[in-house]
């Protein structure tokens, strides 16, 4: 089987812009969750992991003028793509087949919800009609890297979109349909999904408490993150530095409920087991699990039980980083892939913030103090979405 290595990554989230800002925040227990400054909503009292830049500031980072029509989701995506491509030293003249796979669900909704009446009643905002759908968002991001994207597509499996982008990317490499894959996801906050999650009563009005007995719900977040994947042979041949390996990944379906997870976490269990098989690893090989851990009563118990089924009494270190970033929905898998790669390569495990008491039915507690200087060889990260779309990825140190 093709050895897949990671040669670049880029991220923007509530923790700031870039891989270094992300690592710094995690190492120093600095959460990005707070009061929303940029999304204009009646429910601004709900804390969220908002990217700390206005649209104008994001445009400045990219040198995009104010009269060019682009959505916030695409701005975030472009920034993350740029960092990932630079780190991987992808140059625009190369004739390598580069696939760009991006996950999103909100797409251009954040602009559509502002301009929807204009769309229907006048011609003031027509340029944003074509930017509404998910694919348009990917297309606008790919243009940041003009000329040499050999294929692009968009995955929309709600909160596991970015993880599924990585899984598709791995298969494109394994079937020799691409030489390099840039995979991840992007999502910005919108009233549409903030209000939607609110109607489902799964938002916490305080900072979220993943895996805590008294957890009340999630805090939404936003951001974008991509990793650059290629075969080990391809990376060596072009002299790109391999950061770590993607040793396995898998996608399974919970097939339980449109928006809730099954009590025993069947989909999650099957996804983790299949990812382990794909990696040729045993549960005991996993040193750290970066959990989906949204902080909703349903997810954390279901995911915890699934982990107990996988790991039994030998639970690896576990933490959710949602209390740092909020839940960036479609981008979550991307953000947490980057975080998992950081923990693996810098040998630390970020604390699961806001935890005080264990969930009764679970046999483990998450890591509550950031651990540094720990030797990690294999890190598993979970991304679960509405519709029971459950996916797991395993990153490993270079063999």
């Amino acid at each position, binding site marked *: 089987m093709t050895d897949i290595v990671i040669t670049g990554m880029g991220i923007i989230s509530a923790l700031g812009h870039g891989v270094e800002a992300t690592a710094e925040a995690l190492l120093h227990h600095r959460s990005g969750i707070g009061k929303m400054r940029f999304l204009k909503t009646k*429910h601004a009292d709900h804390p969220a992991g908002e990217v700390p830049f206005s649209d104008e500031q994001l445009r400045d980072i990219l040198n995009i003028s104010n009269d060019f029509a682009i959505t916030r989701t695409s701005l975030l995506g472009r920034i993350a793509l740029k960092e990932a491509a630079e780190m991987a030293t992808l140059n625009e003249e190369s004739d390598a087949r580069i696939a760009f796979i991006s996950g999103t*669900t909100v797409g251009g909704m954040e602009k559509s919800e502002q301009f929807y009446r204009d769309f229907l009643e006048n011609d003031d905002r027509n340029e944003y009609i074509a930017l509404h759908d998910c694919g348009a968002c990917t297309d606008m991001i790919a243009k940041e890297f003009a000329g040499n994207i050999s294929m692009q597509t968009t995955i929309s499996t709600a909160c596991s979109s970015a993880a599924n982008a990585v899984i598709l990317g791995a298969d494109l490499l394994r079937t020799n349909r691409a030489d390099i894959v840039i995979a991840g996801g992007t999502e910005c906050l919108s009233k549409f999904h903030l209000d939607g999650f609110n109607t*489902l009563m799964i938002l916490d009005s305080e900072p979220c408490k993943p895996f805590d007995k008294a957890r009340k719900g999630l805090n939404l977040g936003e951001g974008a993150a991509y990793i650059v994947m290629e075969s080990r042979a391809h990376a060596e041949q072009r002299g790109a530095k391999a950061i770590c390996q993607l040793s396995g990944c898998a996608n399974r379906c919970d097939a339980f409920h449109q928006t809730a997870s099954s009590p025993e976490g069947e989909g999650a269990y099957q996804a983790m087991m299949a990812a382990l098989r794909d990696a040729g690893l045993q549960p005991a090989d996993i040193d750290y699990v970066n959990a989906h851990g949204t902080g909703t009563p349903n997810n954390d118990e279901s995911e915890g039980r699934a982990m107990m089924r996988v790991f039994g009494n030998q639970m690896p270190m576990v933490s959710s980083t949602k209390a740092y970033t909020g839940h960036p929905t479609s981008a979550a898998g991307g953000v947490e892939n980057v975080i998992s790669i950081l923990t693996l390569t810098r040998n630390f495990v970020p604390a699961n913030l806001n935890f005080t008491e264990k969930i009764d039915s679970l046999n483990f507690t998450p890591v509550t103090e950031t651990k540094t200087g720990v030797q990690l060889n294999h890190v598993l990260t979970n991304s679960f979405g509405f519709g029971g779309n459950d996916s797991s990825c395993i990153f490993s140190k270079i063999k």
Partner: protein
Amino acid sequence: MSIYIQSASQISFQQPLCEKWLDEPILPIQSFNQPMEPDYKQFIAPAESRRMGKLLKRAVATALDTLAKGGCEMPDAIISGTGLGCVENTEKFLNAVIDNEEECLPPTPFMQSTHNTISSQISLKLQCHGYNSTYSHRGTSFDSALLDAVMQLQLGRVNTALVGGYDEMTPAYFKMLGKLGYWRDGDVSIDELKKDGIPGAISGGASVSALLGNKNTQNALCQLVDTEIFSCNSVEKLQNKLHSFLNRCQSETAEIDAVMCGLSGDKANDDVYRDLLCKEFPTIPTLWYKHLFGESFCASGYGIYCASHLLNAGKVPDLLIYNGKFEKFVVNNILIINHFQNNDFSLTLLTKCHN
């Protein structure tokens, strides 16, 4: 390993869940076309049906019909494409957010608005825990799902995969896309759609699915040699891509009996096909399908669906021929070409089953 299309079904403005369009096609009379709804009772219980949006009902019925025709109770993977997701529910929730100023909102339209609702509902219906994914990439949403399914089969992870393309066109979305020049004004007759240089296509929803498998079952419609999606911005590059694709399929342009294209009547869409066909396939008949199934982000699914059934039926109705003549009445290989806005392309080669 060979891949077969074991069954394929559709709901559209043709007779639903059957291939009557082969003999009794329904011609569109306007740009805005709504699908002909089948009797859903055989697929979905009435109580359940009331809670489901129109697109979701169509998708579930099309998927279940495809599985039944393919003799498959449980596919190993469910992979869907949808350019816009469940628009009707999205609009309901969006209008409520705006009208009610974010207060007292109904949860159900939100729950059923996400793009993966469709794959999820099919998995729920079947209790299928296998690989499950959803692509939302404009005019290559279905094509992306098809490629994923082909890779799952090629990597030996699954024996069967249900692939679908599902989109709905609401009056509001029709109006919005109309502002961008998507639709034809006035006459939508076949002759008029074939005329060069006129902008706009006719709309249709999409609910089309196919069961892919690695076994040549008795009822298999055809074999799928390979499929590919790529980005491309010039005809020269497109020609290179075409040659390398056919090369990989161990096929040559001379062996192609017909080219099935996403020709829609919209000049901006059709020029690319005309240019390529003229350069690469000057003597090979061109087939089209969007005049019978309409344009939508997942319309390309009907290209695969039609070509599969043509190969199985061993005949091509005149109404599907865009231009050219069949010298011999044998159709062994159909190349399917699709593109979206001259940027995202797909190529698929289907061949007759060799028993």
